[in-house]
């Protein structure tokens, strides 16, 4: 019997990680479906904390499972980029979040990582971003699942070439924003009883004054803010990525393998093989 490899993950660990990722995604999806189907009537009627706890624990457990599943598989070159992404998220998000604009712009770093390193890295970065940011601002912690979803969707969009044409990036952002906003709305409704910003709060109030339930009003607000916000974020990331030197862009195996960006087509097989080995050094 050969001794276990010190550098390559065994098939059993790979299977366990895949299981963790699936469980994490299922926890997030299950929590959302439960909250929407069950539409707890107690949001505005009682303490409402049962649904807040379900939203919090379901989404958080899902996000943590995703991190535990994805983080060990990332190559070191991607891992060292995650703090950079987190810093960009926090600096820009904290700045925009406190202004009177109904946007957040708190996902630039997450989307950047997703475009450069793929959906799994994007999802892990989104979830990690919320968890690390909560050291300064605990109110972002419950949105970990939504942030992970945006990272994942951005990675999927990049993989299918939506960042190759400049005008497709905002379209992809708009669609990702619709999905992300709808998933994040129950968190805002059940945990916060509203939104955490003044401008977004004004939009919710407008819908409430028309007699909507809290969840409906917040979902509509999310459908106004999030797609626009993510369209802006995806466009900004496209600007940033194309402004990076070619050498830096091509450093990432995901960009090379899936021809994520226009003008990064590499036909020689050497680039392909180094990409694979770099992707497996976790």
């Amino acid at each position, binding site marked *: 019997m050969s001794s276990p490899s010190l*550098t390559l993950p065994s098939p059993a660990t790979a299977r366990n990680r895949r299981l963790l990722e699936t469980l994490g995604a299922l926890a997030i999806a299950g929590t959302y479906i439960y909250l929407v189907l069950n539409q707890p009537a107690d949001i505005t009627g009682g303490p409402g*904390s*049962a649904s807040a706890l379900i939203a*919090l624990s379901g989404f958080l457990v899902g996000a943590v499972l995703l991190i535990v599943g994805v983080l060990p598989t990332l190559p*070191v070159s991607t891992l060292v980029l995650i*703090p950079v992404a987190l810093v960009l998220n926090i600096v820009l998000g904290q700045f925009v979040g406190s202004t009177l604009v109904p946007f957040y712009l708190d996902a630039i770093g997450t989307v950047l990582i997703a475009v450069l390193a793929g959906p799994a890295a994007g999802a892990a970065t989104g979830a990690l971003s919320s968890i690390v940011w909560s050291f300064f601002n605990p109110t972002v912690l419950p949105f970990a699942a939504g942030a992970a979803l945006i990272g994942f969707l951005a990675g999927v969009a990049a993989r299918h070439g939506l960042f190759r044409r400049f005008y497709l990036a905002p379209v992809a952002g708009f669609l990702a924003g619709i999905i992300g906003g709808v998933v994040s709305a129950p968190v805002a409704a059940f945990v*916060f009883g509203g939104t*955490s910003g003044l401008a977004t709060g004004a939009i919710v*109030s407008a819908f409430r*004054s028309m007699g909507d339930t809290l969840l409906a009003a917040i979902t509509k607000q999310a459908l106004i803010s999030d797609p626009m916000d993510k369209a802006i974020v995806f466009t900004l990331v496209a600007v940033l990525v194309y402004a990076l030197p070619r050498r830096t862009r091509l450093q990432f195996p995901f960009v090379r393998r899936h021809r994520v960006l226009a003008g990064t087509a590499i036909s020689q097989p050497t680039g392909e093989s180094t990409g694979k080995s770099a992707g497996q050094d976790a």
Partner: protein
Amino acid sequence: MRLHPMTSLAAAGSTAVITTAAASWPLSLTVIAAAAGLSVAGGVARRMLPAVAVILAPLVLSLLAMHGLFFPEGTTVLVRWGPARVTVEGLHFALERAAQLSAAVLVLLLCSFTISVPDLVAALSARGVHARFAFVLASTLTLLPAISSRLGRIRQAQEARGLVIRPGIVGRAGAFRWQAVPLVLSLVEEAGTRAAALQARGFGSAGQHTSYRAVQDSPIQRWVRLVLVLAAVAAIAARLWQPTAGAS
């Protein structure tokens, strides 16, 4: 003796969970008062105050404006201005949520302001799986303060090259590219260098990692942590068992 970082994390987390689960006015206010008192006693109140104000002021104002003025479910109307109605139920809901959220935010912020980051990183990596998470956490927390000074330097350099930041949203958006691109570029470049250095030191290998820094732990603290986590789980279970207990 210093608190083990995991003990303060467990204490803050379970207090936040229990306050949310209990959803009771007196408990939320007690927790707020206790957190305020502890922050003064610990000497972090002065540093914590701006962070608390930045987070809680928009949150509480937004809740009060949203539910205080528009609460279709409310029946006891106090004042009415056109479509806006101030109702007792709306104000009650807004204040209750505000107290509950403030308690959780204060406790968690108190924890992050008193915890020692190197100790937390060492404690996390001592548990094996979390070496990568500990790296991300420590790296972000040390990068953040450096970023704002670097942004300032980039702006100065671009202004020296003739960049004029005009007022208004278009002017700012135009200036954004000239500041963001050098920032992101230098950060990505540095990350590449760091990756090579880390890889050379065996960071990516799957074997056992050891830590240079040892964090003191005691059996009592281990027990306290266990009790705190169990209490939080019990609070969640109790709330799910009786979703409307304590409703007013």
